[in-house]
């Protein structure tokens, strides 16, 4: 039995990485899915595409209107700029906060009135919204915004709508590689980081998609307002490398 049969889902940022894995998992579970991103549709995309920058509220509203009734909204689109506060420019602020914070707000505001009873919003927060990664100041702060907005939406729009956030840890995506590129010795840094995971590996986009399916499905009917961390045990451990002991 497919778990999302008959449900209409919209996933932001479905071109690649976690968003793409969520699109594919939703399709496999029987949902009707559309996705969006900046620029043209990727060639092999198995669902309709909207060329959309989520930081543009008017454009988001137009897409929501075209999409119509909705059951599942996944706010996955996100941008990471690897800088400290003093290195960050106004343009960095507009880019990161515009996409990660305002973008989530834009799409929630546009899609919520069109959401059917029992609808589910799944936001992508981050472990970095709770604990800081070095040189990710605006990114960390923007994800904390997502966590708090998640709780507000759950409180304001229950019982008809549920809203949760997934907080991924280190997932094998382009973003992860960009993070390691900051290290003096990326290969060693990657080994060091891997050793800190109780699971002995980094996450895969499918690991996050699996939680997104659960939260989108009626199985999660009592789950709302929560942050679900999927990080291979990384933040359950002290930041000391267990390899030292």
């Amino acid at each position: 039995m497919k778990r999302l049969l008959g449900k209409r889902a919209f996933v932001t940022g479905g071109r690649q990485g976690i968003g793409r894995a969520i699109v594919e998992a939703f399709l496999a579970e029987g949902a009707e899915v559309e996705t969006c991103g900046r620029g043209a549709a990727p060639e092999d995309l198995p669902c309709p595409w909207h060329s959309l920058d989520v930081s543009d509220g008017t454009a988001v509203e137009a897409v929501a209107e075209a999409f119509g009734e909705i059951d599942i909204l996944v706010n996955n689109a996100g941008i990471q700029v690897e800088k400290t506060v003093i290195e960050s420019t106004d343009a960095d602020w507009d880019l990161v906060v515009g996409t990660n914070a305002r973008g989530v707000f834009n799409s929630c505001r546009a899609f919520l009135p069109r959401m059917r009873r029992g609808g589910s919003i799944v936001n992508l927060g981050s472990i970095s919204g709770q604990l800081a990664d070095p040189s990710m100041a605006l990114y960390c702060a923007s994800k904390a915004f997502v966590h708090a907005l998640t709780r507000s939406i759950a409180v304001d729009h229950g019982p008809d709508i549920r809203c949760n956030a997934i907080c991924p840890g280190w997932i094998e995506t382009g973003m992860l590689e960009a993070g390691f590129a900051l290290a003096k010795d990326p290969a060693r840094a990657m080994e060091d980081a891997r050793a800190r995971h109780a699971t002995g590996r980094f996450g895969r986009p499918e690991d996050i998609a699996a939680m997104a399916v659960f939260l989108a499905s009626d199985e999660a009917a009592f789950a709302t307002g929560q942050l679900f961390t999927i990080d291979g045990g990384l933040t359950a451990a002290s930041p000391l490398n267990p390899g030292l002991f």
Partner: protein
Amino acid sequence: MRLEGKIAFVTGGRGGIGRAVVARFLREGAVVYAADLSEAGSLDRHDADGSRFLRLDVSDEAECIAAMAQVRAESGHLDILVNAAGIEIEKTIEETSLDEWNRSFAVNVTGTFLTSKHALPLLRAAAAEGPSASIVNFGSYDGFIADPGLASYCATKGAVHALTRAMACDHGPEGIRVNAICPGYIDTPMLQSFFTGEGSGAGGKSIGDLQQAVRDVHPLRSYGTPEDIANLVTWLASDEARYASGQLWVLDGGLSAQVQQMKV
């Protein structure tokens, strides 16, 4: 002086952190009972410091009752109780014997329960006179996130955190504040044992290298001193903290504020 005239009782009062708390309380003008298993506690020796020593095993209810009876007879009430006595078994659950598990809970959790339980009438008496009475428990950052090979210790500290909130909830209306301090890496005999102990598996690394590696992973690039902890205990014990209750106060040099350190 911030604790002038106050009566304080510190368990583990001759150990690493407890001893620093006792010394600071004395400087701040308190009358201090230092309770521990022996005069020298976990350190090699002890020089007279003006504290009143009480031999006490916090896991023994009769001894806790007797200790509080002595405080009542001598001082009439108690303003501050600091539950700093604690032990750490450096093992995974598979390596931990039932006796070790029970001993961890007996000292770290039951000890906090017993001293608090039997100090309550004395704390109530103090709260009736002054702004509030204060209990300061010792949790740990390990009660939130795990260090490897410290399973029973992590579990007991998580229990202390929950007990702290429960006590704050139950006894706040009586004017008794209850908080826990959650230290990170503090330079104490317990930490040195963690570095050198069988479970630490320094794996060819010298202790010095290991200590440096641990310092380097802290945003502040050092581990803390018992005096750092005593500073916060003093504040929580003082009337300045009269609105602070039911909270877990992490003091760890920023260690647990971060996800990950890329040092290479």
